[in-house]
Structures are given as C-alpha cells and as structure tokens.
C-alpha cells in the first residue's frame, strides 16, 4: 500500500487517487514545433529515484497536485504542491 500525501486531504491510499505521471511543463501549443510537442507527449525521464509527478485525488477533493516521490523506495518528500496537471514544475 502506498500512502500519497494530498495537500487537501492528507495521506490517502493510492487506490483513492489516479496517477498522472511525470510532471513536465506543457509547451505552448501555438508556438511549439511538432517535435517539441511529441517529446512532451511521449518522452519520459523515468528515473530510478526522485521524480516530480502528478496525482489526481479522485475519491477525495478531486483536485490535481504534484509531489516528489522516490520511485525506488516510494518515499515522498517536500510538501506537495497544489496545481493542475499542466502546470507542474520542471
């Protein structure tokens, strides 16, 4: 079981949330080249370690937030940042 820290609801079982994957800033669709856009759509860093990622609190507050998790140990760090799926850091 993975307890995911929702900024609004506190720790919740991961089965209550939906995983949104790596948090990358979305390029501006009006100016991005096709290559930049497809890289944003498909390419991932997929590190074995700290990763900033998005979660959707589906059975709780129904908001997106981003948080840092270690994909090798499943620890979380830093206070989670509220924000929508598109606005993630990095």
């Amino acid at each position: 079981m993975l307890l995911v820290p929702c900024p609004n609801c506190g720790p919740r079982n991961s089965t209550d949330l939906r995983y949104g994957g790596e948090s990358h800033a979305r390029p501006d669709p009006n100016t991005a080249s096709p290559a930049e856009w497809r890289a944003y759509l498909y390419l991932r860093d997929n590190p074995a370690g700290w990763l900033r990622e998005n979660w959707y609190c589906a059975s709780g507050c129904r908001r997106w937030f981003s948080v840092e998790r270690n994909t090798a140990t499943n620890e979380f760090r830093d206070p989670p940042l509220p924000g929508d799926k598109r606005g993630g850091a990095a």
Partner: protein
Amino acid sequence: MRGNGRLGRKRPPKYSAAALAWKGLRGQSWPRVWRDCDLKRSYDAVVIGGGVHGLATAYYLARNHGMTDVAVLDKAYLGSGGSGRNTAIVRSNYLTPEGVAFYDRSVHLYEQMAVELNINVMFSQRGHLTLAHSDASLRTMHWRAEVNKLGGVNSSVIGPDEIKKECPSLDTSDHPRYPIQGALYHPPGGVVRHDAVVWGYARAADHMGVEMHQKTEVTDILCEGGDGPDGKGAGGRVTGVRTNRGDISTPIVINCTAGWASLISTMAGVRLPITTHPLQAAVTEPVKMFLPTVVVSGSLHVYVSQTDRGELVFGASVDPYANYSVRGSLEFTEGLAGHVLELMPGVSRMRILRQWSGLCDMTPDYSPVMGHTPVEGFLVDVGWGTYGFKAAPVSGEQIAEAAATGTTPKLIEAFALSRFDDGELVGEKGAASVGH
C-alpha cells in the same frame, strides 16, 4: 544448429533420456552449461541485459551473422529480470497487422526451439481464450479475429457454449455481474517454460563463443560526437561501456534491459517513451488438471493458466504508478481473488502459495521500441512491457540483423523509436494490456 559445425567447437552434451540414465547409473554429474570468462577490454558488440532478449540477440548474432566476439553483461544473474518472472504466455493474436506478423514469426520460432537448442522448453500449445464481457469488447475480439485471419493466424470468435466445452470450469451462465458473452479463441497460443528458454539461448550462445558476464553492471555508455554533454546524444556514436569491472570498448551496444531501459538509454543521451511499472503475479498450491487452456479476461483484469505441476498461475495489469521496487501488494491479491472467483467459483478453497513481481517497460501504444537510435551503434530492444517473453526469439533474430548489417529489417520497421516523432503509433492496447 548451423553454428556448431562452422565454428568447430566441441558439441555440447546432448540432453536425452539415454544420457540421463547413463549419467545417473554411473553417478556422473553434468558439466557446467556456460563458461565463466575473464572480461576482455574490447568486443565487436556488447549486449546489456542477460534476459531472454539479450541472450536471443547474442545467439542470433553468432548463429546468423557469424559475430561471436560478443559479450552479454548482466548486473545480476541471467534471467533475473522479467525473463525469470513472467507467466510464460506465448500467442500471436494481436490487433495490428504489424503486431500479428511479428508475433507470429515468434510463435514459429518457439515451435522449432526445442530441437534447435536441444533443450526441452515444454511449449504447450494448449489454446488461448480472451473473454469478452461486453458488446464493446466482443467487437474488439471480432476485429482482432479478422486481422489475425488476414495474417494467417488461427483465431476466431466463439460463443459461451463453445467456451464451456473448451473450459468447463468457467462460469458461462448469466449469474455473474459481467456474464461471459464470447471469446477470442486462439488454438496455437500456450505457455513455454521460461527458464528453459533463458538457459537454452545462453548455452547455445556460449557454445558458439559468446561470453556471458554476470554481476557486471553497466554504469555508463561512452560516446563521442553527439550534441549532448560528453559527446552523448543525437549525431554521436558509441565507443564503449563503463562497468563495475572496468571499461570496454566496442562499436555496438544493444540495450536489452526491459524495466531498466530508460536508465541505460539516458547513459547514451537517448530519451525513451517508456515508464517502468511493476507487474505482479501469483501461484496457487497444485491441484489435479482441470483448466485446459489459458484464460484471459480484459474486463476483469485477470488471466490464469494451469502449470503442468497443477498450480494455477495468475496475473493482472501493471501497478498503476511508475515504480522500480518489486514489492507485492495486498490490493493485488485481493483484486485477483475477487475477479478469479467471478470466472471460476469452483476455486474458492484454493490457497495462494506465492506472489512476486517484475519490472515492465511500458510504452504509450503497448508496442515495443526496436532498432537504431540517433546515436550510431546504440540499438534498443525495449518497451517490452508485459508481453516481451513471447517476442524474444523474433526480437533476437531481427535486432541481431539490424546490428550486424546496419539496416532496419522490414518486420520491425513499424517499431522504430522515430515513430513517436512521426506520430505513427502502433496501438496494441486492445490486445496487450491484460492478456500478456
């Protein structure tokens, strides 16, 4: 085996009933199956990952292209990744014409494998049923059946009565919450003994001169001329690899590391459309044979087959979030048990003996990423997700050809990394997300 005579090495001992009896009576033991070699400073090609894909690639490099100065490096032991953890299902009833042609070649290579490698891989073509519990999934089954038939693959949609005949233990009544409405039936599908495939390729490759190095971890890939730091990245080329046992120079590096594929590709400055997710599986205590085919239910997120020993082997979909840890979860066994009982109420008293998990390299379209990359000499055979075991023979054959000739064989053109730049995805989700 073509390579044997040509390379003039001693033939490996034949595995046969007579040899078993002879050695048993005289108290002899079997010789070690592959050598332990010193790591050389240079090779014609280095394969990273000693799973079934890396070993098949090395085997075909030697057998079909005479490239025997090849090292397979694994950070742990051969078969320690997905190759030793999968549920061993082999089939070719995919959804796209590209997928069907590719996996069908693999089924044919599996059919010849026991003879070719002189090892009993126990390929049991017992038939494969993909159940449909809704109109939508029945429609996908019809679609798959038609694509399969066009590709010459034995596959058809059958109704509940015929399903009951094939598999009497399935509840085909209208009592369950999601009654079974039909199934895609694929008679040549089945299971193979996965460890035997790993050992068979390793032994045959070793015999032709390929070196297998276990406990040899690649920590960096050496490049020059690329557009990134240290000469890595697009436009450059590979010059070697760095390992925990020293540097090796080589013009060809093949990434066959499945769940770890992104980590290796990053070392060459190549980004992949891959995220790593664990896939869990479980096995019950053994009982008498009652389940003749492999049964998959996409809607219920579960699949099951019975081993020759009588155990039921179960699997499901990958864990929902990216993860490099292979710890099992209670959610998995709970969900599994509930869904299996919907299908087969009769197994409610059986006990689960073990559960385990392995890392899967998931792509957005559920198709692999194969072939050359923007870094010359750096090839990938990755994106195997939850379906790569069945693909090992054909992947080894095709990637070996790509590496040895510098071309892209027709059978894997559609799976190139560049398809993501071009937006030409090969969508196999409907055929690969639960039934592996």
